[in-house]
C-alpha cells in the first residue's frame, strides 16, 4: 500500500483504517447540519404532540399547527436524514476504503449547494406562513413561495453532486486498490446501492420541483395534479429506499463494530440490497391507489404486487442481522438457550439497542406498510394517522435510531472525542425507543378509527360518534409518547454537540506499521443445525402475527359499504 501518502492520511488507532484528513472536516460539517435539523424538527415534534393531546393546553393556534407540521416534515425527513446520509456516504467511501476523496472541491461545492437550499427552505417555511405552508409534499395546485421550490432544487442538485463525488471516490479506490480485494465491503455495497437509488429519486424530484417553480411564477399553468403527485412520489417514496438501504448498511456496520458479527451469508445479504434497486420505481403508485388517475390493473400491479416484492429485501435483512448477532454470541459464549444470546449481547454498546430496537420496531412498521399498501386496504387507511404510525416506525425507529447509534461511534472515530456521560448514550436510545413505541401506538389507535393526519384539531367533527373517548386514548398516547421521544432525542443532540466540542480528546494518530484491516478468511463450518434458531423463532412469531393482523384488516374492510364494482 505504498500508494498512501502518509501526510494526507492518518491511521485510526482503533480500526487501523487510513483516514483521509481533508475529508474529515467535510464529514463533520455534514453531520453537524444534520443534527441541527434534527433539533429543529424535534422542537416541532414536541409542539405537535402537545397540541394533539385532548386538553386545551397548547402553545399554538390551529393555523400555526400546519406550519409546525411543515417544519417537522422538512427538517426531519428531508434535512436530518439526507445530511446525515451524505456524511455517512463520505465515511463509507473514504475511511472504510482507506481512500482519498475524489475531489474535495466537489465535496465542499455540494455542501454549499445543499446549505443554500436548506436555508431557502427554512427561510420560507419559517417566515412565509401560510403562503409556503404546503408540506414537504407540496402537491400542486397548492402554490408556495418560489424560493421554497428553488430551495428544494438546489438541495437536490447538491445531493447529486455529492453522489457523483461518491462514485468517483469508489472508482478511484478500485483503481488504486486502496482496499484489499475486488468486492466492496458489504456495508459500502449497501451505501452504493443507496446512492444509485438516490440518482433515480433526484431526477424525479427535479422534474416536479422545476415544474412547480415555474408554476409559482405563473410561467406555466398548474401541471396535472395527479401526474405531479405520481412523479413527486417517484422522488418521495424512492427516497425511502435510499433510507432503508443506508439503514441496513449501518446495521451491518454496527453489529460488526459491537460484536464482530458477520452476515449469515454474504450472497444473501447482497442479493437483498440489489432487490431494493430493482423494485423501487413502481412503488410510487401506492400513493395513488385511491386516486382517480389510473385504472385497476395498473394500480394493483404497480402499487401492490410489485411493491410486495420490495418487502423481500427488508425481510431478509431483518432476519439476517439478528441472526448474525445470535451466531456470533453463540460461538463466543457457547450459549445454548434459545434466547440467552439476547441477554448476552453487549448492551453497554450503543450499537445494540440501536439495532435490536430498530429492527423490532421497523418490523412492525413494515407490517403496517404492507397493509396500507394493499390495494383494497389502502381505502381504509389512506391519509389517516396510522400512516404516520407506519413511517415513524420505519424512518424514525429504523433509520433515525441506526444513525444515532452510528453517530456515537463517528464522534469517537473522526473528530476523536469521547462521548460524555458514560452510559447515558445507551439510556438515550432506550428512552427514544420506548417513546416511539408509545407515540406510534397512539397514532395507530387514533388512525384506525379515522383520525386524519395533517389535521390541527378534530373538534369540528361533532356530528356523530366520532372524536369520542376511544379516539382520545390514541391522542393521549400520542402526546405522552411525543414527550418521551423528544426527551430522548434532545438527550442525543445534547450528548453529540457537547461531546463534539468539549468531550475528552482521544488518541487520533495510529501507526502506519499496523496493517490495513482486512477480512480473516474462515472456512464456513457446515452443520445441519440451525445457526440462528432464536431469531428464526422470533421471525415465525412475527409472521404469524402479521397474517392474523392482515386477515383481520380485511375483515374490518368487509364490514364497510359496498363500493367499487367487482369484475
Amino acid at each position, binding site marked *: 500500500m505504498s500508494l498512501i501518502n502518509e501526510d494526507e492520511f492518518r491511521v485510526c488507532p482503533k480500526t487501523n483504517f487510513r483516514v483521509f484528513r481533508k475529508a474529515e472536516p467535510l464529514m463533520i460539517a455534514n453531520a453537524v447540519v444534520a443534527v441541527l435539523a434534527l433539533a429543529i424538527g424535534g422542537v416541532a415534534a414536541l409542539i405537535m404532540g402537545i397540541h394533539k393531546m385532548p386538553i386545551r393546553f397548547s402553545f399554538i393556534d390551529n393555523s400555526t399547527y400546519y406550519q409546525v407540521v411543515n417544519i417537522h416534515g422538512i427538517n426531519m425527513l428531508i434535512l436530518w436524514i439526507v445530511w446525515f446520509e451524505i456524511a455517512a456516504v463520505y465515511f463509507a467511501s473514504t475511511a472504510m476504503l482507506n481512500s482519498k476523496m475524489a475531489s474535495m472541491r466537489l465535496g465542499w461545492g455540494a455542501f454549499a449547494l445543499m446549505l443554500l437550499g436548506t436555508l431557502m427552505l427554512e427561510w420560507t417555511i419559517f417566515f412565509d406562513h401560510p403562503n409556503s405552508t404546503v408540506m414537504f409534499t407540496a402537491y400542486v395546485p397548492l402554490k408556495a413561495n418560489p424560493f421554497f421550490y428553488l430551495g428544494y432544487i438546489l438541495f437536490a442538485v447538491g445531493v447529486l453532486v455529492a453522489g457523483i463525488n461518491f462514485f468517483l471516490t469508489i472508482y478511484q479506490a478500485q483503481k488504486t486498490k486502496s482496499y484489499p480485494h475486488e468486492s466492496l465491503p458489504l456495508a459500502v455495497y449497501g451505501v452504493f446501492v443507496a446512492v444509485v437509488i438516490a440518482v433515480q429519486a433526484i431526477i424525479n424530484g427535479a422534474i416536479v420541483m422545476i415544474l412547480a417553480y415555474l408554476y409559482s411564477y405563473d410561467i406555466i399553468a398548474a401541471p396535472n395534479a395527479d401526474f405531479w403527485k405520481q412523479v413527486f412520489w417517484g422522488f418521495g417514496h424512492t427516497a425511502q429506499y435510499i433510507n432503508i438501504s443506508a439503514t441496513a448498511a449501518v446495521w451491518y456496520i454496527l453489529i460488526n463494530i459491537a460484536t464482530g458479527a458477520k452476515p449469515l451469508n454474504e450472497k444473501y445479504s447482497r442479493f437483498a440490497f440489489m432487490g431494493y434497486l430493482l423494485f423501487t420505481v413502481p412503488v410510487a403508485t401506492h400513493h395513488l391507489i385511491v386516486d382517480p388517475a389510473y385504472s385497476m390493473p395498473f394500480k394493483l400491479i404497480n402499487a401492490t404486487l410489485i411493491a410486495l416484492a420490495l418487502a423481500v429485501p427488508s425481510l*431478509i435483512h431483518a432476519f439476517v442481522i439478528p441472526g448474525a448477532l445470535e451466531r456470533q454470541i453463540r460461538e463466543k459464549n457457547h450459549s445454548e438457550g434459545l434466547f440467552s444470546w439476547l441477554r448476552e449481547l453487549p448492551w453497554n454498546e450503543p450499537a445494540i439497542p440501536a439495532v435490536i430496537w430498530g429492527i423490532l420496531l421497523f418490523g412492525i412498521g413494515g407490517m403496517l406498510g404492507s397493509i396500507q399498501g394493499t390495494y383494497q386496504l389502502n381505502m381504509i387507511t389512506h391519509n389517516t394517522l396510522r400512516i404516520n404510525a407506519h413511517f415513524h416506525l420505519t424512518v424514525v425507529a429504523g433509520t433515525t435510531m441506526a444513525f444515532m447509534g452510528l453517530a456515537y461511534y463517528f464522534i469517537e472515530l473522526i473528530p476523536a472525542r469521547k462521548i460524555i456521560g458514560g452510559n447515558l448514550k445507551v439510556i438515550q436510545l432506550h428512552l427514544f425507543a420506548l417513546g416511539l413505541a408509545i407515540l406510534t401506538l397512539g397514532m395507530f389507535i387514533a388512525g384506525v378509527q379515522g383520525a386524519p393526519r395533517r389535521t390541527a384539531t378534530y373538534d369540528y367533527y361533532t356530528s356523530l360518534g366520532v372524536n369520542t373517548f376511544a379516539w382520545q386514548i390514541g391522542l393521549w398516547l400520542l402526546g405522552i409518547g411525543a414527550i418521551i421521544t423528544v426527551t430522548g432525542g434532545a438527550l442525543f443532540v445534547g450528548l453529540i454537540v457537547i461531546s463534539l466540542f468539549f468531550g475528552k480528546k482521544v488518541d487520533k494518530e495510529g501507526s502506519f506499521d499496523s496493517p490495513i484491516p482486512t477480512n480473516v478468511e474462515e472456512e464456513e463450518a457446515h452443520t445441519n443445525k440451525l445457526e440462528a434458531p432464536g431469531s428464526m423463532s422470533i421471525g415465525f412469531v412475527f409472521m404469524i402475527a402479521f397474517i392474523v393482523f392482515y386477515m383481520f384488516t380485511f375483515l374490518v374492510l368487509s364490514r364497510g359499504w*359496498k363500493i367499487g364494482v367487482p369484475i
Partner: protein
Amino acid sequence: MSITNPNKNWWKVPLGKDEKIWSGVIILMILMMGSMTVGWVFTGDQNPPDKFTSISNENFLSTATSENVASKGVFPGKLSNGNTSLDRFTSGDIYLVAQRFTWFAPSSDLNGSTANGVKFKVGLTYRMHLGSIDVLHGFQIVGDNWIISLQVVPGYDYYFDFTPTTTGLFQIICNEFCGIGHHTMLGFLEVVA
C-alpha cells in the same frame, strides 16, 4: 466482515439452512398477500374505484350543478341535523364538489342556498361523482366501525358505485391538507330507511 472485504469466493458459498427456511417463509407470505388482494378484486365487495373522466374544474362544477336537479330524482331537503341537503331516494347519479373549505352538492334547484349534505336510502346503489375545483382534497367518511378514504383531485371526475348498508348520519371530512382551514372542511351524508 461487513466493514472490510468479504471472503474470497463469497458468491460460491451456498445458502445455509436458516436462509433457506426463511426464504420459504417469505415466499409463503408474499403468496398469501398476493392471492388475498387479487382474489378480493374479483370477489370482494369493497374495491378502490378506478373510473374517472378528465374534466376542467369549471366544467365539473357546471355539470354537477345541472345534473343534480329534481327532474332526475334529486330534490332539496334537510338533514336530521338541520343542514340543507339534496335528497336522492332512487338509484342514480349524485355530484359532490370539494372547494376550500367545504363539501357541497351544487344544484340549480336550491334557490341560492348551498347543500353541504346528501341524503340516501339504504340498500339502493348510487353513482357518486367526486371532484375538486381548486386543490387536492381527501373524501373521508368517518363512522364508528369503518371508514372510506378517497382522493379528490382537480381535473378529474372520480366516480364510483356504492351501496350504503347502514343508516345514520355520517360526517364527511377532508383528510388531505388543503390549506390552513383544512380541519373545518365538513360535509354530511345521511342514510335513511
